[in-house]
């Protein structure tokens, strides 16, 4: 765990380990933690990992991620491990599971999709066709979603 020593242990909050190398900034964006927050966040990128070769790690102080937020994470870091830290101890371990459908997390990116009308009340739904490689389509219009660009379409 030498890479964990690069940042100090946190008292309370969430540690996200095993983020694919280089994706930590995207993870922050997807969790909407990149702007307008005052809690301290530590980030290490491209550190050696036995499992992954290289990985990113995030430690978010004073913030416990809930399941809905974890669903967001599944899109770009499906194999990340999440630990909820309370009083310097791992209080809970949460695994991220990519479900079969993403409901009201990301909107379809296709400009002519019926869901582009913000007044339409039904939920935004994206179907997970496969996780490796990640293939996601809009449940309504069927369009392929570019996973790298999905962060722009978070609801």
């Amino acid at each position, binding site marked *: 765990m030498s890479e964990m020593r690069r940042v100090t242990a946190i008292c309370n909050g969430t540690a996200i380990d095993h983020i694919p190398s280089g994706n930590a900034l995207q993870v922050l964006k997807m969790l909407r933690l990149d702007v307008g927050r005052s809690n301290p966040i530590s980030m290490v990128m491209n550190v050696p990992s036995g499992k992954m070769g290289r990985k990113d790690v995030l430690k978010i102080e004073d913030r416990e991620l809930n399941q809905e937020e974890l669903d967001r994470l599944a899109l770009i870091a499906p194999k990340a491990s999440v630990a909820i830290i309370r009083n310097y101890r791992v209080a809970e371990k949460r695994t991220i599971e990519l479900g079969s459908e993403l409901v009201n997390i990301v909107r379809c990116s296709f400009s*002519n999709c*019926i*869901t582009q009308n913000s007044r339409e009340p*039904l939920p935004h739904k994206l179907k997970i066709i496969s996780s490796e490689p990640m293939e996601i389509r809009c449940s*309504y*219009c*069927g*369009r392929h979603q570019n996973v790298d660009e999905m962060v722009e379409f978070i609801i």
Partner: protein
Amino acid sequence: MGDLITMDDLTNEEILQILDDANILLPVARGELYLPLLQGKVLGNLFFENSTRTRMSFETAMKRLGGEVLNLSSIGSSVAKGETLYDTMQMVDGYSDIAVIRHPNQGAAQYSADAVDIPILNAGDGAGNHPTQTMLDLFTIREAHGTLEGLNVMMVGDLRYGRTTHSLSHALMRFGAKLTLVSPKSLKMPTEIVSDLKSHGGDINETIDMASSIDSADVIYMTRIQKERFPDEEEYNKVAGIYKLTAGDLGNAKSGMIVMHPLPRVNELDSSVDSTKHAKYFQQAFNGVPTRMALLCRGLSVNVPRKVK
């Protein structure tokens, strides 16, 4: 559920069953026999985008089976006042037993099906799917060749925006067709569709050359380059008129080869083809009636008798 949103809603067996039903209903479609299977039922015909054949053939189909039709077009209705599709569908759900929807936005048919309980038949959503057209195309192909299995099918023209060819290529693939996709580079079939077709074991050849494949084709499916789907006129002018099929091109065609076109046509299909034995596009347009009759019956869970007369 009797929804038909994409061809994936039907198994191959169901497709063949619907085509059999349509075949039985031919005399009813021609008006030679009145068979009020859908008496007392109301069809909501919802066209948020222009249509001639689809709209009229659904209306004829419903009326020939004894049902009633409500027509809605977006012009002059509450849709023009900014009503959401969701709200419009709640109203239609109260007024009709089944609805046909054409809409400029992709995904509108599935969205409608999620919004209401009545069965929804997709009559074209943007550049998405048009499965009832596919069913009448399959009916026409089977009528001519006696089978859907293993045919050589050429699709020509706007394969990017042409929803007709998207649905039809999926369906034909499931019956082992060999597809030759002929289009200018800018109007190629979308890559996700081609990769889908290939992942299902499809035998696909993409080319810009129409002439070299004509002689080996069992079906030539022409499509119009759709001006209304181009972002600007300059882009349209670059590719308009690139293909034109004339009677002279068909000299060495197989004798049973058929020429199809979802219509309307502009210049891509010359009227000289009309008088050849290959021309099947007007028959294809008529076939919309028996096929849509069979689909309305399926949607409303009404069995078509095995024999009429």
